[in-house]
């Protein structure tokens, strides 16, 4: 997981997640408030440059992370630009009136919002983000699901990886038909583990005196207030710029 790796190793790893979250939120607001596509594109470019040069995320990695979303954007754009004409006999495609304008608006907004999202997730590990959500009074039960999900998904990933490898070593993926069967057995085995692992975690929680919601101590970030003020000011500037360039 490329985002995960970057989040733990970037220049801004130790900056308070509240500050980074505040600035990312301002990025979202700026993108949606921007009147013209060019402004939104400018915000997108600015956020991307900030993430690559400020936080020190390698540009190649940045692009690889953005690739699936860009693929969706490319496919989605097709239907914005072209219109399907069924009025005259055989249906045929033609350029939609105003399609390019719509593409510019939607495309620049998507890129801007994507850049804001990537700014946040490439600089902030998920456990910090969950800590931030805890601070923002997210329902306890939802937080419990998140914490356990984040931890357990790596356990499951490792299990899936190992089992896939072991199955491949015994020719389990030699043909598509065998692959479907092997994958089904793997998923069924994983399904059973859901209950076993949940039971084991429950016992382990009791052993450490738990009898209800899972409590964790959020990490302490130095200069958090200071960074939040800075991020807030920078965010306001960004929104101001986006609005004034209407």
């Amino acid at each position, binding site marked *: 997981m490329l985002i995960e790796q970057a989040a733990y190793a970037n220049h801004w790893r130790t900056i308070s997640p509240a500050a980074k979250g505040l600035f990312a939120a301002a990025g979202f607001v700026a993108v949606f408030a921007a009147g013209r596509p060019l402004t939104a594109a400018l915000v997108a470019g600015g956020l991307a440059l900030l993430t690559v040069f400020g936080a020190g995320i390698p540009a190649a990695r940045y692009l690889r992370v953005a690739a699936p979303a860009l693929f969706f954007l490319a496919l989605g754009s097709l239907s914005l630009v072209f219109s399907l004409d069924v009025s005259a006999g055989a249906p045929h495609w033609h350029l939609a009136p105003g399609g390019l304008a719509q593409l510019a608006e939607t495309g620049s907004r998507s890129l801007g919002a994507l850049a804001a999202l990537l700014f946040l997730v490439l600089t902030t590990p998920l456990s910090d983000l969950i800590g931030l959500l805890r601070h923002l009074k997210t329902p306890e039960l939802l937080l419990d699901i998140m914490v356990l999900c984040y931890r357990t998904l790596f356990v499951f990933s490792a299990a899936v990886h190992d089992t896939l490898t072991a199955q491949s070593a015994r020719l389990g993926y030699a043909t598509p038909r065998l692959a479907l069967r092997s994958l089904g057995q793997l998923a069924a085995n994983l399904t059973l583990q859901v209950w076993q*692992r949940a039971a084991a975690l429950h016992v382990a929680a009791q052993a450490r*005196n738990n009898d209800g919601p899972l409590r964790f101590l959020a990490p302490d970030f130095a200069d958090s207030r200071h960074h939040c003020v800075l991020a807030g000011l920078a965010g306001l500037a960004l929104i101001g710029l986006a609005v004034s360039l209407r």
Partner: protein
Amino acid sequence: MNDCLLELQQVSYRYPDGSLGLNDCSLAIRRGSRNVLIGANGAGKTTLFQHANGLLRPQTGIVRYAGGAVDYGRAGLRQLRSRVGLVFQNPDRQLFSASVAEDVSFGPLNLGLDTASVRRRVADALQAVGMGEFGGRPVHNLSFGQKKRVCIAGVLAMQPELLILDEPMAGLDHTMQQELLAVLDKLHGRGITLLLATHDIDFAYRWAERIHLMAAGRCTATLAAGELGSHGAELAAVGLPLPEIITLQRALAGHGLLSAGARPRCAADLLAALNQTKESPCQFALI
């Protein structure tokens, strides 16, 4: 202060699915001692540990802690579990949070401590297991041995008097084992009573003061490690050989090279005795 910290008296337990857990099992752990519980897989070691921590409740018999019978009410359990720390075998089944420091904070927060104390305890516990620098790391990037030490820190942060570890050496390579043993030595030096499950008799002989044998849900004998040599029959009864080092020492004594009373615990000890030096270079000192 009671000399006997944990005591099981004729405890029996059968799982809901009908399989046998403990069968009339009695065991006593002395305060401040280093104990090994040794027996084959399925002998009931894990079941016994879960009784020590109040996770399971005896169907017959009694569990005593520091002299008093365990109170299975909410307050009693809370107290027992804060004094008896249990480290399970598989780290993946006991680490809740992907953040090291967060996971270690879980136990102390459950004890109802304030934030400042919890923070202090987390730092201390991570320091004690040699993971002081790892608080901000994600659990999934740690090695198996490091995960194991995080599990121990999570229990240490509750400041237990008795620390129980289920198969702590399993899956660790030589270096990790040495690191873990150093951690345990340090904890023992602080006065924490230790109880380890293992199935390696050579390790048990090298490390422990007292060795508890277990088979078929029952503790069949408790032996002072130093006297293990004269209890070959008890060992054989649970399918264990004498430690190799004892066999060697005897043969060498037979050749007049070692005194018959010598009690080397490991190969280094034996060599030192052979070389007539008085000091023991064995890492795990004699009692």
